[in-house]
């Protein structure tokens, strides 16, 4: 299986690598780039732990399942992973801060996937109802929390990112 040279921009940094076509984007991000914040749960598209953002020129950041994409498909693409959320080493993204404040994580395995799903969700729904939040996170599974504090964290982050109180 001959390798391909790909160039991918992740969190603003451009990387070039030779990869087998069958290398999954999730494995490229974790093993080739060393960005292990993106997690691998099911590798068949149901758990959401591998969610990253793929920046579409027209539609903006889109949450995608990195385990269902081949790295070669991301040649020329711009991606954001969880490592790219915090604005600087001293500060957390409001979503990260809200998850911490509201105990929206326990083991933390699912958390990067939730955060990346929630970034475009909150852009589209700045003042979401609980029902909208639960529909928005339906593609992410958490085994620890039972989701209540995740929903609280999203409400808190929405409030801080300029939304209302989501009544």
């Amino acid at each position, binding site marked *: 299986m001959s390798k391909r040279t790909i160039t991918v921009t992740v969190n603003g940094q451009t990387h070039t690598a030779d990869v087998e*076509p069958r290398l999954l984007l999730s494995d490229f991000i974790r093993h080739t780039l060393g960005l292990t914040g993106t997690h691998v749960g099911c590798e068949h598209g149901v758990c*959401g732990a591998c969610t990253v953002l793929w920046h579409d020129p027209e539609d903006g950041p889109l949450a995608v*399942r990195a385990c269902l*994409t*081949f790295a070669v498909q991301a040649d020329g693409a711009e991606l954001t992973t969880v490592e790219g959320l915090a604005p600087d080493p001293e500060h957390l993204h409001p979503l990260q801060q809200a998850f911490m404040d509201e105990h929206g994580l326990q083991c933390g395995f699912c958390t990067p996937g939730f955060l990346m799903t929630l970034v475009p969700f909150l852009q589209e729904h700045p003042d979401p109802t609980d029902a909208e939040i639960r529909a928005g996170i339906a*593609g992410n599974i958490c085994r620890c929390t039972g989701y209540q504090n995740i929903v609280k964290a999203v409400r808190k982050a929405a409030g801080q990112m300029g939304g209302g109180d989501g009544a």
Partner: protein
Amino acid sequence: MKPPRFTYFDPHTLPEALDLLQAHGTDAKVLAGGQSLVPMLNMRLARPAVLVDVNRLPGLAYIRDAGTYLAIGALTRHRQVEKSPLVAARCPLLSEAIRWVGHVQIRNRGTMGGSIAHADPGAELPAVVAALGGRIVLAGAGGDRREVTPDNFFLGWFMTSLQPGEMVVEVRVPTAPPHSGQAFVELARRSGDFALCGVAAHVELDDAGRVQDARMALIGVGPGPIVPEVAGVLAGERPGAAALAAAADRARAAAEPEDDVHATADYRRHLAGVLARRALEQALARAGGPAAAAGGAGA
């Protein structure tokens, strides 16, 4: 859970893609959104020797109003269908059904052509095309195109009448005429799971408010979209309880469910009747407008 080796091509023109498919025949699979194919590769349920990635083909993502139908390019992402005001206005059934396809991450990548070509018996989009009597447009070697009806396309259990060297390029979904109502209802254990059962329903009323046509497709209860004949029991007056029960009977009788880990055949068949009735009630209420909805058709 890692995919097996394959030879990868990412053509930049449709003729190139079709030449590759022609050259590699049954060894090749088209890779579009990958939301159904890549899980199969990851679980090694499929081992295509060749993948032809069509994501870089230009001009295949569009939603066009062609009057009696919407022409939707094969590379149109589900997300685009979901967000489209044109689809919401001209084909409410499709607009409602697309929200049931997987989760947001899946809809960001999954494509219309891919869903149709994959022909999962539990998939929503084939049912919409089958219920409304749409058309699937295929392109083959030399750029020749042919149009196929749903019952000639969906052969059951992930099989279609796509020939080696062909790919789906467009899906044509009929637009809703005046005095019509549509509804898509589904039951799944968790949000975004494959349907235990789903029903797409479309009804048309005449100027006097009587049913003039009724069409339905069921998912999750057979090898492909099941299309029971319900127009006969609903035509004529505004259907009452007896007619709706007869339509539900037709749905149950047409279903061919099997036992599996998610549900028994009996339960799926039961759901077919319940959801058929629910979908028809909603579609009728929407067809009739506010007066009908207030009249307690149960929507």
